[in-house]
């Protein structure tokens, strides 16, 4: 079949139909081994607690056949696209330049569209809720981007700071009756404090070790939230968290509410719209601060740290403060997002702060291209939107999520949208003649 294929004739390697078939056959054989018991036999605890099983050889056969066919298709695609196989060689340059022009206008267009979402979809509560969710993840992504994307510190426990923010607001408001606007900065400060607390011990760790320690830290926070029942309410969480107010004016029906003050009829949508703009403002604040910080010496230091820690130290950059500020800044935004989450839900429990959540935010940052603000926003939109689209396939979506993460790492390890190169770099290498640097010549 593939011997008559036009692509196979100009390939430099002798890849024939026999080779492809052999490879596909081997893949199918491996798949048969892998899935024989896991798919072919289904176990379930029966009525009396005794385990029962039944066979599903039909599913097994179709899966193995799918692997066989898929393997052939992958091999053919590899022939077609050449050994490099990337999409980059596939897209003509004219289209690429067109894409880059579109990319320049994409961010403002998206921003304007986001501002208009509550106006366009005023009557569609579902879309507004989804928009709030997406924006929450955009904010989390931008927050984590400071740690992972700019400073290059792989943080697998980011959700811990989200939890600290959420519980700070939840507990301060229900126990002491503090308002959202007082608690918001407090939540940020507390989360930043925890960020520093985590940052100190892990200063010496690098790469993978750092990732595991942050993961352990995130799990410890979650376990403490579950088990410290006197304060956190344990698995039952904190409920009855007050809704946000417009600087003291509640968004409630009746006297003193915003609707009554403005003389318009009350609608529950007002609160949703308010929440939408609130999280949009918080997310934009995160974005603005990050962009500004990137131009300050500390931001430059973060990027330098990401590129090469040893060189950084050799150049006299203080690694301690650089890492700690990255952790603190990222954690602070996580704390803000957590406080917002608490006020939106009105209820928080440790279940919302699992490792899966950390991995999701990390995936958003990585897929978006580490360090790229626009990429993170697009990735959040794609991931959360995608999750909503496949809502009916609840159990499969995490499976697909994991697969997508692996495939994207293989295909474009620097992210789909593209990653941000260091803001400053030498345009060209200059050679300095030796008499300029000789002693006595400065």
């Amino acid at each position: 079949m593939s011997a008559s294929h036009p692509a196979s004739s100009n390939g430099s390697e002798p890849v024939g139909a026999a080779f492809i078939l052999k490879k596909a056959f081997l893949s199918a054989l491996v798949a048969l081994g892998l899935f024989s018991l896991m798919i072919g036999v289904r176990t379930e605890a029966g009525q009396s607690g005794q385990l029962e099983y039944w066979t599903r050889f039909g599913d097994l056969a179709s899966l193995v056949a799918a692997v066989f066919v898929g393997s052939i298709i992958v091999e053919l695609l590899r022939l077609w696209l050449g050994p490099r196989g990337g999409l980059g060689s596939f897209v003509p340059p004219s289209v690429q330049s067109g894409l880059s022009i579109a990319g320049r206008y994409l961010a403002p267009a998206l921003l304007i569209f986001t501002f208009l979402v509550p106006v366009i979809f005023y009557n569609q509560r579902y879309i507004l809720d989804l928009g709030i969710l997406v924006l929450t993840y955009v904010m989390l992504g931008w927050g984590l981007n400071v740690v992972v994307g700019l400073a290059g510190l792989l943080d697998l426990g980011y959700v811990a700071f989200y939890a600290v923010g959420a519980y700070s607001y939840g507990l301060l408001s229900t126990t002491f009756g503090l308002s959202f606007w007082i608690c918001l900065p407090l939540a940020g400060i507390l989360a930043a404090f925890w960020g520093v607390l985590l940052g100190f011990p892990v200063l010496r760790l690098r790469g993978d070790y750092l990732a595991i320690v942050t993961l352990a830290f995130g799990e410890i926070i979650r376990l403490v939230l579950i088990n410290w029942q006197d304060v956190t309410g344990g698995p039952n969480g904190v409920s009855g968290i007050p809704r946000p107010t417009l600087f003291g004016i509640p968004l409630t029906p009746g006297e003193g509410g915003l609707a009554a003050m403005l003389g318009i009829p009350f609608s529950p949508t007002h609160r949703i719209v308010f929440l939408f703009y609130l999280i949009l403002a918080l997310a934009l604040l995160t974005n603005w601060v990050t962009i500004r910080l990137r131009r300050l010496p500390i931001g430059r230091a973060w990027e330098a740290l990401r590129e090469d820690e040893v060189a950084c130290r050799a150049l006299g950059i203080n690694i301690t403060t650089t890492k700690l500020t990255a952790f603190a800044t990222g954690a602070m935004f996580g704390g803000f997002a957590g406080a917002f989450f608490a006020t939106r839900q009105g209820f928080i429990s440790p279940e919302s702060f699992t490792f899966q959540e950390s991995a999701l935010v990390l995936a958003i940052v990585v897929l978006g291209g580490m360090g790229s603000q626009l990429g993170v926003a697009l990735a959040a939109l794609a991931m959360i939107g995608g999750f909503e689209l496949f809502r009916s396939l609840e159990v499969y979506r995490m499976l697909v999520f994991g697969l997508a993460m692996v495939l994207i790492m293989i295909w474009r390890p620097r992210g789909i949208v593209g990653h941000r190169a260091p803001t400053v770099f030498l345009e060209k290498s200059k050679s300095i003649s030796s008499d300029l640097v000789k002693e006595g010549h400065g």
Partner: protein
Amino acid sequence: MDYFAQQLINGLVLGSIYGLIAIGYTMVYGIVGMINFAHGDVFMIGGFIALISFLVLVSIGLTAVPVILLIVLLVAMAITALYGWTIERIAYRPLRHSFRLAPMLSAIGMSFVLTNFSQVSQGARVKPVPPIVTGGYTLHEGESGFVVQLSNIQIVVVITTIVLLGLFTWLVSRTRLGRDMRACEQDQTMAALLGVDVDRTISMTFVIGAALAAVAGMMYLLYYGLVDFFMGFVAGIKAFTAAVLGGIGSLPGAMLGGLAIGLIETFWSAYFSVEYKDVAAFSILIVVLIFMPTGLLGRPEVEKV
């Protein structure tokens, strides 16, 4: 004293299981230099395969327990090893020269794939099995009526672990494959120049690690009598802690670390609080990494520029 002795036995058994998983982490880290985040889930898959093959064997009328256990052990090791091989082939090999966070992220993705694959294919509910190996010995009976017991299953777990460790030590120190593995650990380029098939050696490392994780999964199934799709996550982190505690890259260290973590967890649960036993294990990980990054038996890592 009796209570202490009983906890000691329990802790050693739990530690054997952790140690078996930890070897997989430490071997892979030693050779490829990455944390195989999906290894805990490979352990979980091993438990599931042991469960299913056990069920099938019983239903076709096999009754001799030692025969069943042996067949289940071999099947679980073989199929789980295939999982280890496939994971390395699909998710790690293409990334070997990628940027430094890529293999870790790919491994996290793979961990999600395995967890959700077993949830989708086998359901989310806990799978209980009736006790397979029953009975035991009473070692000591105290005046207060507290009995120190050593059950047969505990003996099975410890003996299997010891036998496998012996086999494994022989493999690493005496065979061609073991020599290749040690060569790759020191310098992959040089090893390749001297005729070692690096790709094959790395594959075999994953295969052996997965096979040992399968044994751990089966022992877990026999000892606790249940498996579920989420058990790999926490067990994986604890085994990783064990590997770090023992000194990552060191094989005896992994076993030693496993025993230490098993004992610490058991004693913590017995004398302090069950709720915080995972917190204790995770805290140890953090403390060890901060104050003793090379672990008990590890060599200090030389920073290369």
